[in-house]
């Protein structure tokens, strides 16, 4: 017997001995206790009291933005301020929990805003009312103009502490703003916070733009534009509005999307009536062909680990969803339901693939597991299309078009839905809006 084998055996004996000694402790804790089993949870939103932050006048607006964020998630129910019994004058003091229990608040948010050296110092605390304990507390400094961003960051903190998942409030959305009649539609790239605030246009509408997609790592988007007459894929930094052509191909390129590390863009390239999927290195501009099939392969999207790509193809006779290795290859069909599937997008969480489904007279937004199981339709209407994931993989945004009426095109608006389908919210935009692209969480 070698020494290492002996050592392993001794270790095994020691572990077994420890397990034997530890078992009675675990047993002792619960032995004799009756167990009441509660199966199946209620999908009740958490009742939360968000008080006005004291101090600077910004405090009231700040708490309103926090409450609106939480409400929009569908997982929280901010309690009407009029019901509050205790008036928080000093957020550094322990609240009177009985006052908050009396209005059925599960959680309580207090905070303050002060000016320090011409900058804002925002401090907040989240209390568990039932347990009477502080769950989290943080302070932030920022220029006064950035108070909304602080509100979103605080809402993210609250969301994460209560639900256990990352938030999605400190994010932005790039989309295609549409104006004008149907035969002379003007389409501009626009950007806004996820709640519709801080809206601005990124392009002036002289060129048609389509399918913007956010980089998962930087504040960059890729999109398709007719700026040079033919459709081409461009790259834009949304802060500087600087844009550039991504590759100079003789033919049409479209349906671009970033890899999870932001270093590559996968897209379709059309040639002689056929389209295949290519991956391009954003820095070196080297290109790699991933599919080579007479059918139309398009709408590629990476898995969050970068190892696989989901795409659509009509190689089986109708447009369906396929998954292949990120290095290319044949691909395996995963959609087998009725209708046609398009625009598959892999969740940043990795557990679902979102898609648009056309069946009968309607278009729907749905999700399925990466192996094709568990297909669920989350929203459906005359035209629901173009899903994009929030960075936490819990919510989706898409656009919904109403049917044409009286010779006029129906309104096109953005919607947000969660993976249960229970939370469906409109996203405000100043004009008609399509093709949303959700940003990652903005780096702090």
């Amino acid at each position, binding site marked *: 017997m070698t020494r290492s084998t002996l050592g392993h055996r001794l270790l095994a004996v020691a572990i077994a001995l420890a397990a034997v000694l530890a078992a009675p402790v*675990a*047993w*002792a*804790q*619960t032995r004799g*206790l*009756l*167990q009441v*089993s*509660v*199966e*199946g*949870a*209620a999908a*009740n939103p*958490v009742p939360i009291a968000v008080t006005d932050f004291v101090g600077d006048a910004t405090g009231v607006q700040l708490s309103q933005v926090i409450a609106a964020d939480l409400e929009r998630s569908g997982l929280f129910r901010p309690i009407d301020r009029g019901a509050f019994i205790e008036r928080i004058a000093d957020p*550094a*003091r*322990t609240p009177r929990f009985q006052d908050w229990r009396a209005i059925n608040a*599960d959680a309580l948010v207090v905070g303050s805003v002060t000016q320090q*050296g011409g900058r804002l110092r925002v401090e907040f605390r989240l209390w*568990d*009312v039932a*347990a009477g*304990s*502080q769950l989290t*507390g*943080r*302070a*932030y*400094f920022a*220029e006064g103009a*950035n108070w909304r*961003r602080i509100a979103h960051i605080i809402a993210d903190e609250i969301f994460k502490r*209560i*639900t*256990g*998942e990352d938030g999605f409030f400190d994010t932005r959305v790039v989309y295609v703003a549409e104006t004008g009649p149907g035969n002379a539609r003007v389409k501009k790239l626009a950007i806004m916070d996820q709640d519709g605030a801080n809206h*601005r*246009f*990124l*392009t*002036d509408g002289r060129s048609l733009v389509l399918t913007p997609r956010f980089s998962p790592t930087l*504040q*960059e988007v890729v999109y398709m534009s007719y700026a040079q007459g033919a459709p081409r894929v461009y*790259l834009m930094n*949304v*802060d*500087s*509005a*600087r844009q*550039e052509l991504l590759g100079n191909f003789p033919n049409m390129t479209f349906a671009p999307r970033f890899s999870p590390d932001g270093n590559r863009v996968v897209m379709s390239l059309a040639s002689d009536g056929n389209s295949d999927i290519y991956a391009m290195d954003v820095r070196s501009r080297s290109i790699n062909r991933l599919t080579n099939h007479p059918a139309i392969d398009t709408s590629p999207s990476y898995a969050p680990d970068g190892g696989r790509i989901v795409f659509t193809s009509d190689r089986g006779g109708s447009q369906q969803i396929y998954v292949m290795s990120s290095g290319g290859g044949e691909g395996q069909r995963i959609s087998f339901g009725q209708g046609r599937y398009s625009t598959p997008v892999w969740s940043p*969480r990795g*557990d679902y693939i979102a898609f648009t489904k056309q069946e009968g007279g309607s278009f729907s937004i749905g999700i399925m597991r990466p192996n094709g199981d568990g297909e669920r339709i989350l929203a459906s209407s005359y035209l629901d299309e173009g899903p994009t994931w929030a960075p936490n993989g*819990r919510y989706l945004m898409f656009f919904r078009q109403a049917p044409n009426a009286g010779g006029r095109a129906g309104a096109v608006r953005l919607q947000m839905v*969660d993976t*249960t389908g229970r939370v469906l919210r409109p996203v405000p935009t100043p004009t008609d809006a399509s093709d949303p692209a959700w940003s990652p969480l*903005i*780096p*702090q």
Partner: protein
Amino acid sequence: MRWRGGSDREMTTPAVLSAGAHVVLLAVAILGLPTLGRAPDDSLADVPIYDTSEVGPQSKAPVVSQERPQDRKLPEAEKNTPAPPAPQVEAAPKPKPDPKPDPKPEPQVAAIQPKVEEKPAPKPEPKVEKPKEPDAEAIKPKPPEPAVERKPEPKPEPPKPEVRKPEPPKPEPPKPPVAKPAPPKPQEKTVDQIASEAINRAQRPPQPVAGAGKPNVPGTRTPQTAFVAGRLTQSENAAMADKVRPCWSVNDGGRDASQLIVYVVVDMSPEGYVTDAVISDATRAAMANNPMLRAFAEAARRAVLNPRCQPLPYPRHKYDQLKRFEFKFDPRDLR
């Protein structure tokens, strides 16, 4: 005796010192330390903020594209898109030396707050007296129901090495049923009792539950279940569960949400009100590095503490077994 002569002087000094120290100690004991004088104001939560962050503008203007080979600005960027100001990274007046974001509550919080978030496991005696509360009398002298008596396991319950709270001395002797040697007669049991016993039998053997649930998901099917013995009928369990369930708000769209199971140990007054709720040690250990599980467990604890979902409709004749019990929360039908 030698030591006496030689040590008289030596002993005087320590004796004086000792006496002085005792006086000081006595004074401190009576008057308290000067710094403790502020203790009575327990409403003051000097809770430190344990993280400060510099929040920049909308984004930190990533360094991209300036040096790219094919860089060329198209003529369509609008004038209303000014680049946001560069992020401010100056050493701002941070209020505190900025300890890292630590999920643990600060020590000061624990010291000052009226309640501590997680109660220490060993709970001394105060709870022992609970059953003696005046109201308890109405319920306590419950004549044990036949259903309970017939159970073939009136085991004398070996002395419990109770970890958390010493149970009050079991009033086992008052159980008349022990005297009744009549063997259990199956035909006299109700359907509920039979079902309950069948379930209990299945639960009783302390077998590891390796196959249950998805072992790769932390916090699932903790081995604790294997050691729990249940003696509630299904209808009794359902009544208590139905009362609490509406107060259990969970993130039902969370990843693997349906696989998370948490346990909360509850102390209950004879009136059915929860007087204490502690996340079980096993759950707490599992949730240390699983934020989802922690959120589930805390939501479960909030649910059982929620006055809206009390009093619990428990079988009064089983109070002795239910003055402390365990809630198992299993959101199995979540997606």
